[in-house]
């Protein structure tokens, strides 16, 4: 039993905005005051401190085949960024692509207790789960890439969307995934022919379906299966000048169905294709404001080193050609593809500077904080442990102006950002970093401090410098256990892996056996990830 008393509590889900409250914890859950014996409870005196639910990251690349390939081919990333073993914790290395144990520790030290791995090909989901088991403290889930899946595209062409629905239900259960992920729908398949898609109605080679059909079918399936999250969409033309238009068209293609658009910064580019990059943030933010069915995360650029890694094969090849840096590509049979390319974001690079501006403009132009979330698409736009800097940029207009000063002059010319006065409040920060993300993910016991919630709690010193404040919380509790005390990691616990197991018509398995015989190099029986791979697994119900 544990009590956090006299803290300044920010719990937007329950409408608590900086009021002084006591929080009581028993058996890993938040309970009401009368359920605890105060005399027996450990008391954390939070007088003068800020109390929030543990952070919930909706989109980060922390484990699995692509992340590991990134680690493997970037020793230069790790050399100067190491973590020494202690009697409690494992050692590790890596800056933009840290090792699994280190990732768990660093997120916890930043006050985050739940993180979603943003993309895994189901064929290699077993690998992802092995790494998740080696990622301590955090509760986690995995999004399963389906936007270029042969079985689904075949079903769409044949008009068999119920069959596609049963397949998706089976696939999520088989791969122990949490949500449907769509990456460059159709474009990754076309990349296997050295091509891409450019419009929402372009054709996928060999399948006769379009990005629009893929997205709308999966959105329908998501609603049918009542999945806790919505389809998580990385739209077409990511990173291309002028993609704001197709991003808005993709939102419209959903015809009101719910969806999440990830790392929107990379998809809000104005200007004419082939010409110089201009911000398309105003146009895209307007579309978000007008589509209440849409949530987004930003993918804010952080100046400094990054590692781009997506399932978007053609994008990664283009980045390789652009930077000339080493290129990793991985096409996955019948399912998806992907790649990894190192990156450096520079203030003095006009393209990078505009990217940076676009991200902040989106944060400030999207009206409803419940629908826009803080991410850096780690490690694509920058590493996750720089979130505190983004928080400072959002909360502190003067700091924003100061950083703006150092940008390439061409990027600053005519930029919208200097005119935006809005500053985020602590309440809004609590929304975009935990309450909103937990709600979007359908995690009913996360992101708030009401009775029955998981006792994941972060306690910060109240400092003027918001970057400092959010970088090193005083206390972090995970499931009611103190894991960080006085800013120090004091405990290593295993985290849970959250997944869904929606029901499906078992008749689908006959079709799937035939499909596997024809399309895969492994057998149907060896494909599903057995529960033994998730000793800390937990099914999140669909409803």
């Amino acid at each position, binding site marked *: 039993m544990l009590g956090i008393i006299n803290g300044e509590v920010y719990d937007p889900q329950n409408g608590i905005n900086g009021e002084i409250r006591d929080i009581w914890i028993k058996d890993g859950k938040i309970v009401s005051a009368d359920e605890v014996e105060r005399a027996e409870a450990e008391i954390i005196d939070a007088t003068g401190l800020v109390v929030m639910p543990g952070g919930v990251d909706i989109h980060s690349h922390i484990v699995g085949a692509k992340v590991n390939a990134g680690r493997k081919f970037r020793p230069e990333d790790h050399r100067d960024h190491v973590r020494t073993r202690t009697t409690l914790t494992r050692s590790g290395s890596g800056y933009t692509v840290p090792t699994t144990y280190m990732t768990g520790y660093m997120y916890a030290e930043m006050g985050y207790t739940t993180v979603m791995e943003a993309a895994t090909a189901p064929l290699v989901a077993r690998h992802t789960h092995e790494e998740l088991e080696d990622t301590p403290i955090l509760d986690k889930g995995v999004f399963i890439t389906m936007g270029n899946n042969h079985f689904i595209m075949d079903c769409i062409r044949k008009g068999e969307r119920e069959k596609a629905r049963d397949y998706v239900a089976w696939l999520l259960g088989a791969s122990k995934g949490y949500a449907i992920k769509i990456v460059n729908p159709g474009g990754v398949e076309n990349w296997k022919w050295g091509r891409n898609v450019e419009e929402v109605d372009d054709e996928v080679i060999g399948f006769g379906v379009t990005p629009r059909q893929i997205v709308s079918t999966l959105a329908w399936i998501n609603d049918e299966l009542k999945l806790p999250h919505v389809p998580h969409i990385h739209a077409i033309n990511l990173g291309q000048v002028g993609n704001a238009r197709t991003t808005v068209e993709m939102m419209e293609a959903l015809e009101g169905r719910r969806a999440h658009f990830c790392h929107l910064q990379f998809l809000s580019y104005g200007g004419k294709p082939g010409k110089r990059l201009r911000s398309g943030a105003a146009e895209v933010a307007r579309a978000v404001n007008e589509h209440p069915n849409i949530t987004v995360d930003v993918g804010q650029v952080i100046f400094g080193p990054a590692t781009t890694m997506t399932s978007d094969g053609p994008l990664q090849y283009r980045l390789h050609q652009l930077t000339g840096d080493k290129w990793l*590509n991985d096409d996955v049979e019948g399912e998806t593809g992907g790649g990894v390319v190192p990156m450096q974001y520079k203030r003095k690079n006009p393209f990078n500077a505009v990217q940076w501006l676009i991200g902040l403009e989106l944060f400030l132009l999207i009206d409803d904080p419940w629908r826009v979330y803080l991410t850096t698409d780690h490690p694509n736009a920058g590493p996750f442990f720089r979130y505190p800097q983004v928080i400072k940029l959002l909360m502190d207009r003067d700091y924003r102006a100061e950083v703006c000063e150092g940008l390439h002059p061409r990027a600053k010319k005519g930029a919208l950002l200097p005119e935006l006065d809005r500053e985020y409040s602590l309440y809004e920060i609590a929304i975009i970093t935990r309450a909103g993300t937990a709600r979007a993910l359908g995690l009913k016991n996360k992101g708030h401090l009401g009775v029955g919630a998981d006792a994941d709690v972060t306690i910060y010193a109240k400092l003027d410098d918001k970057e400092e404040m959010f970088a090193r919380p005083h206390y972090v509790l995970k499931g009611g256990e103190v894991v960080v005390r006085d800013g120090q990691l004091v405990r290593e616990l295993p985290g849970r892996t959250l997944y869904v197991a929606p029901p499906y018509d078992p008749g689908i398995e006959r079709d799937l056996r035939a499909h596997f015989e024809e399309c895969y190099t492994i057998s149907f029986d060896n494909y599903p990830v057995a529960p033994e791979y998730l000793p800390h697994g937990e099914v999140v119900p669909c409803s």
Partner: protein
Amino acid sequence: MIVGNVVCPFCGCLCDDIVVTVEDNRITAVEKACTSGRSLFLNVHTQTAKPTVDGKEVEWAEAVDVAARILTDAANPLIYGLSSTASEAQRKAIALADLLGATIDSTSSVCHGPTTIGIQVEGEPTCTLGEIKHRADLLVFWGCNPAESHQRHFARYSVLAKGKLTPGGRRDRTMVVVDVRPTLSTRRADVFLQVRPGHDFELLNALRALLKGQDLDVDQVGGVEVARLQDLVERMKSCRFGVIFFGMGVTQTGGKHLNVAELVALVAELNAYTRFTAMPMRGHGNVAGADCTLTWQTGYPFAVNFARGYPQYNPGEFTAVDVLARGETDAALIIASDPVAHFPRRAAQRLAQIPTIVLDPEMSLTAQVARVVLPTAFYGVNAAGTAYRMDNVPLPLKKVVDSSQPTDEQVLDWIIEKVKTCSA
């Protein structure tokens, strides 16, 4: 009892369609496997074996105790092998290395270690084997001989496989082999380029030059006529989907990692014309898994040292052969491999001089010189676990017959617990 869809743990193909017949807890028949796979399944013994210390049989608790003491007393312990055990055990081995401040290395360092270094320089345009099965119309095998080393590769994944865009199998593909001598694989090829030993880099470099449209003012490169190289470049540019599979003939000759970097650069450049990929022919059943697990726990796939309390990577400094040959290693834990049989003499001798501990289902040559021998269950035959195919696709190894031996993972867990109490 007949067990289907069994994964053969022997080589990097990890064929997962093996059918095994079990009678009285003995394997009596094996279908679909190649000769290597068959003999693996048929020769795994199931009788109980006790651990030994200095050649004398002891109880497990005592053997683990001695092993833990040897490792904690050592100043520079080495953990080596890993490529024929399951990833579950590999993860424990790395945890033990971290705890001890040891050096840890896998058999990668003597086969595809240079591949890793080449990839760290130039990248890795690759794909899963199914993409090759379904799409590839041009297959180049460079410095490898799968007809003997990966016997079902051609049938399941490459030359003979019938895929979506290659329904005619062999008919729909062109097979090119580059090697220093004729082999069983070159006999199957449409085009065989015999390169002079040690000249792979020149050949790769010449191909890159020709791809860029440069004229070569020589008639031949590395023993191959330029006209034939030009022909290969044209085939590469005009194919639908191409792949270069490469083996130790590329990674362990001449410029080693420079060869690999050059090969990757060529493949990357070909993507301006068509889709092209590269794939190392990984040998041991789970050598790819050793790379994976080491990477996610330490950041590096082989040659890792924890002496400073954090992982450091340096091939040549922290590779097993080197730490042994320099006499730095003062105790060794060898997991599922036989370095005494394969290492250069000086490195192998060192293993006989220092206290060596062996975890292996087989009585290897290394086990014969070891102080402590811990006979474990055979993953994929009498224990379940995970292995990564040569294209990093993870597969579940099955337990098809029972064994009273503990697994590598269990034994490593016991040692870890013991080391923790020893050092506390």
